């Protein structure tokens, strides 16, 4: 029994190697890490710049937020980004000049900000109550998102491409007469994907969150990565056995990537509040992953119970579908 399982593992491993599965995972890892380390970490939005046109030097005090310009035209050009605030002190009555940003509320604040800067009242300090700085937050946030995307969309595809290859070679047909149980057939694939997903998760975390912070959150991250990996692999297995060819499968994949994961990202990233999002099962998986990265207390026992229940159910479903498919193949 164990020997049979071992042989299955070896076969699946070879299949993954020949399907360039590991190479693709490595390429994704590099691509994501480069993006995070060179681009995402540096993303920021600066405060509204204040431009000052003051030929007679009426304004004595120049704060760090002020840029001086020499002509009225330069002032208007600088303000054309609908972000900067301009002050023209050349005329009789001083003028605040800006282009609307499109939101009255933001415009109101911008004018208040501009006047505060010119009055020189910019030396306050808010009390900080969090533990992350901006860079650390960016790193944790984007790593959680990439891992979620990679596991849910790409892992799903990896298993399916493997299975379709086997289907083409007639492995499922042959399997009907082999003395290996169907559970073994599913388990060996699950096990390999599980291990490779966990390795991917660990590498991605350590590379992008940093060694000390990464190792601190790694146990929790691995738990959620494991749950997600099992669920997605089983769904992938089910779809791949059920659907006749890879093309139809990619349709399902596309729908999954666009309509299932996108709302989750929007809700998780921008904080747009939709009431219905709580009924979206992937949302809970994503939030659990995210809170693991932020070392926040994640959902309680109910979450784990439902997750493991779902895994067990999906396994039964995959098993049943495989049985039906083998019977069909004769």
């Amino acid at each position: 029994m164990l020997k049979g399982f071992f042989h299955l593992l070896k076969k699946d491993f070879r299949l993954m190697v020949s399907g360039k599965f590991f190479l693709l995972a490595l390429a994704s890892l590099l691509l994501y890490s480069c993006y995070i380390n060179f681009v995402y970490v540096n993303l920021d939005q600066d405060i509204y710049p204040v431009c000052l046109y003051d030929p007679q030097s009426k304004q004595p005090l120049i704060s760090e937020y002020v840029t001086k310009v020499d002509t009225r035209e330069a002032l208007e050009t600088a303000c054309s980004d609908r972000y900067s605030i301009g002050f023209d002190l050349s005329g009789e009555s001083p003028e605040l000049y800006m282009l609307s940003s499109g939101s009255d509320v933001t415009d109101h604040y911008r004018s208040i900000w501009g006047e505060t800067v010119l009055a020189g009242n910019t030396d306050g300090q808010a009390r900080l109550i969090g533990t992350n700085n901006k860079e650390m937050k960016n790193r944790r946030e984007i790593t959680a998102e990439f891992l979620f995307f990679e596991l849910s969309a790409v892992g799903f595809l990896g298993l399916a491409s493997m299975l379709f290859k086997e289907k083409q070679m007639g492995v499922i047909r042959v399997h009907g007469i082999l003395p290996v149980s169907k559970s073994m057939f599913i388990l060996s694939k699950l096990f390999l994907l599980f291990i490779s997903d966990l390795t991917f998760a660990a590498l991605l975390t350590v590379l992008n969150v940093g060694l000390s912070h990464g190792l601190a959150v790694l146990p929790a991250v691995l738990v959620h990565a494991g749950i997600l990996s099992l669920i997605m692999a089983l769904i992938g297995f089910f779809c791949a056995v059920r659907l006749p060819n890879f093309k139809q499968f990619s349709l399902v994949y596309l729908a999954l990537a666009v309509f299932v994961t996108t709302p989750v990202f929007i809700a998780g990233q921008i904080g747009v509040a939709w009431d219905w999002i709580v009924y979206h099962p992937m949302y809970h998986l994503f939030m659990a992953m995210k809170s693991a990265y932020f070392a926040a207390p994640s959902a309680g026992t109910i979450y784990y119970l439902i997750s493991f229940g779902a895994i067990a159910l999906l396994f039964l479903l995959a098993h049943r579908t495989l049985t039906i498919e083998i019977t069909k193949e004769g």
Partner: protein
Amino acid sequence: MKGLKYQLKNIRRDKMCILTFLLPIIAGIAIHLLSGVNLQTVSEASFGILKNDLSQEASLWLKANGNLTQYETPEELYAAINDPSTQIIGVLKTDNGIRTLLSGDELTLNKVIADTLPQAYTGRTEKSPYTRTIIPVSENADGLTSLLIVITLVTAMFMGATFNAMNIIGEKEDGVAFINRILPMTAKSYIIQKITLGFMGSAASALITSLICMQIKPSQLIPFLLLIILSAYISALTGLFIGHLSEGLMTGIVYIKILMILFLAPPILFYLTIPPQSPLFNLSYLLPSSATFYALMDLLNNQPDRLSLNLFILFVHAILWSVTYTLIKNKRPRSRPAATS
């Protein structure tokens, strides 16, 4: 022409290909429905206050400057401030004004707002010495919506790549590619047919999407059409490249994934973060989608000064990639028999 008819017949059965064109249209409808709903508030500052803490006047002042959310307990307020997906600034009462709380992971914009808010609040009663001139902007004022529209349109224009790549890889897998070799059809007419297919699909998808979520003035019509034509052509050509390079559907999908990220992410980032004068910005023109992206953004914002430059860059890309593809395609038949024999 007859060949094209067969090509069209071929894709009619291919649901995947049809779906690739429908996706941007669906996204366009979604944006159209979404626009005006809450997207603008994302760019506004967010303040969180405690129930029964601030005076009526202070909360009204905050409301005039951003989104205001009220929390029942300090714990809830602290949790909201610390939530990494929000940029909420906590505002509490002091003896003679307000004080602010931050998590510390906010953007510089919100950090500065929080740092200076108490002083701005103190100064609220002084009469402003400035006459305020706030120039209203023309339509499509919502920055985030126009960004979404442009992203969808660029995706639509470059869907031809996905479409052609899928189509060609499918032919490779079904063995149609081999049959094509013995059919009395030249490589040239094959390429022309495929490019026309992808081109028509991209152009149609982009046109429908733009009709749904964009208002184009008559004066902008010609540059806009030119933009669609050039981009759709380049995208169809890119699809041929991917189809040519990838062996199976799996590698094809990976190539498409990388291509989509490459075509969409850099222009957005460069557009948002780097001023157009810097040399780094010019570097982004190495990707054809950048020119499309900037041109569309300029069209939406009614700033047509760089439009002809962008169109010219697209034109150069079109020529360059056509030549490269012809070179690759001509080279292959000579090396192929040697490798297989």
